[in-house]
């Protein structure tokens, strides 16, 4: 301590230590993972195409590029109209779920937070069950209404988050992040009960509802991509711009407040953005589990615990992970498809254990 009492030593430290932040190396690795997922996702399938030709065909999509890939017209159509939109959707949905999971973990300072924490899953589940049992084509009470499943899932998700928010806000000024999590649990339980009741009454729709619940990336061309893209852009922009604020929030609300932030305002803005992105992802591809919790934690273990690292890398690796998982889901039991949610958990679980063990060995 006597050294600390030296008077004003304003010497520059000998070794420069850089603050936490996204290193270019990791950004390159993330971009590379996305490229690999893109090429692999488009090449692999019932008709296998040579990855080199696929890469050339992908380059041809860029304006001004005209190269000969050696693929036939039909193969080119498979690439651009069937597989590419599906892979791109996987990249968007995976990126959104991982980004939203990372943001939720930061906002709630809770490593177990996932994008479905505030009732998104239950809200979407109930809404979709309502549509499938009472709505379109089922001869039910709502069959006259032009309600699609994606729209129902989207509205159900946001409705549930709004309910959670209103219930949590009833706690008044003293409400804490934990109040909101508890409200989410209550809303989820309430909506799930409604869903279970409907399924009991309409046992014939159980198959359809479950196949939706487990998630899928099957698309009708570029339509789903166009629907998700605007939400993807808004959510990523808002969340990524707040990545530094999430680091400040990690030291506690009082500290963040005394550092000049408005913790409550940042928190609700981030929750709104992450929930919007999650709702869009869910409406396009159902409830894909595990991505939102496993990807941010893997990034945290490998690349660093700052949200300036976690959030952008989660976006890249989440997208790559889901696109590659989808390759497995549609090839392993071809021509059948395994629900992608099953694959994310089956692959993701052991992979996460591996990362956990490796990281611990490296750190100690």
């Amino acid at each position, binding site marked *: *301590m006597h*050294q*600390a*009492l*030296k*008077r*004003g*030593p*304003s*010497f*520059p*430290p000998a070794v420069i*230590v850089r*603050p*936490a*932040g996204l290193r270019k190396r990791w950004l390159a690795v993330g971009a590379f993972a996305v490229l690999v997922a893109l090429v692999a996702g488009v090449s692999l399938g019932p008709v296998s195409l040579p990855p080199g030709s696929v890469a050339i065909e992908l380059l041809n999509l860029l304006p001004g590029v005209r190269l000969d890939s050696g693929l036939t017209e039909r193969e080119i159509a498979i690439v651009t109209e069937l597989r590419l939109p599906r892979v791109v959707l996987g990249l968007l949905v995976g990126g959104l779920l991982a980004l939203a999971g990372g943001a939720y973990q930061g906002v709630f*300072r809770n490593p177990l937070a996932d994008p479905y924490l505030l009732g998104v899953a239950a809200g979407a589940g109930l809404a979709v069950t309502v549509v499938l049992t009472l709505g379109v084509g089922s001869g039910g009470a709502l069959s006259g209404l032009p309600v699609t499943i994606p729209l129902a899932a989207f509205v159900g998700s946001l409705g549930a988050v709004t309910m959670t928010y209103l219930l949590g806000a009833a706690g*008044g*000024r*003293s409400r804490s992040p934990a109040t909101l999590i508890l409200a989410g649990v209550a809303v989820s339980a309430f909506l799930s009960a409604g869903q279970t009741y409907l399924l009991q009454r309409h046992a014939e729709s159980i198959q359809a509802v479950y196949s939706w619940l487990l998630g899928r990336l099957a698309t009708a061309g570029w339509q789903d991509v166009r629907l998700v893209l605007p939400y993807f852009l808004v959510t990523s922009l808002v969340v990524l*711009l707040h990545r*530094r*604020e999430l*680091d*400040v929030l*990690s*030291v*506690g609300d*009082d*500290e963040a*407040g*005394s*550092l*000049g*932030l*408005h913790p409550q305002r940042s928190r609700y803005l981030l929750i709104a953005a992450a929930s919007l992105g999650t709702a869009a992802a869910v409406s396009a591809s159902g409830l894909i589990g595990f991505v939102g919790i496993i990807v941010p934690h893997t990034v*945290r273990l490998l690349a*660093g*615990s*700052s949200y300036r690292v976690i959030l952008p890398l989660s976006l890249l690796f989440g997208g790559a992970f889901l696109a590659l998982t989808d390759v497995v889901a549609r090839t392993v039991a071809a021509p059948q498809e395994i629900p992608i949610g099953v694959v994310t958990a089956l692959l993701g679980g052991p992979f996460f254990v591996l990362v956990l063990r490796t990281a611990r060995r490296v750190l100690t």
Partner: protein
Amino acid sequence: MIPTPPGPGTGTEAAKIGAPPAVEVRDLHVRLDGVPILTGVDLTVAAGEWVTVIGPNGAGKSTLLRAVGGLLPAPDAVRIFGTPLGALRRRERARVVATVAQSPVVPPGMAVLDYVLLGRTPYIPPLGRESAADLAVVDEVLGRLDLIDFRTRELATLSGGERQRVFLARALAQGATLLLLDEPTSALDIGHQQEVLELVDRLRGQHGLTVLATMHDLSIAGEYADRMVLLAAGRVAAAGPPREVLTEQLLSRHYRAHVKVIPTPHGPLVLPTRPGRHP
């Protein structure tokens, strides 16, 4: 690099030249969840002064500090260097007032350098990143607090005394001239208590800081404070130099404690005594 306060020197000098006090609290009322915590508190801290708030558990010490730090709605009751808190924007306020909470959250995995760098938040544009100047300030503060070798260490792996120094470094990096310390030594052994308080006092002298602290250890609080404020049941029960506040009569009434106060050249020593054993 660290801004100097208006008017250097001790509180009395500053008062003589008419500079506004660092903290001026007038008739502060705070209710939390409908429960009145503070009921009409008045408090003045001159620029450069060290004032320590004492009082029994639940007296409202931390609440008073949070109100002065702008963390509770008290728009007009609190003035900082003459400006009402409500008239300051959050980032402006953060450049003038720095708070070290009683037990700050230690974020898992965060390195000391990154933690101290958070102190530059009020200078970093909301969507921007830290500049070379911010890094230079942080390096300077780390050097001053002998923390250079700790830069890459995880905050969670540091000892209590080291952590307290890091918390102080974060507050200093804020460049604030008013330091609010809530129980800065409650988790430390007696040696580290002295170490931290000596450090605060030295920094106060070097940078002309004003210190408003809360403390539980009365004797050590009396040694470092210019003035003390005894808070009891949400009101100021006594205020003045340590020898006027640390009296057997005041302490036994407001703490319901059995103590003996021994005057020494350093200030009063407060000794707890067991009732009935020492007639």
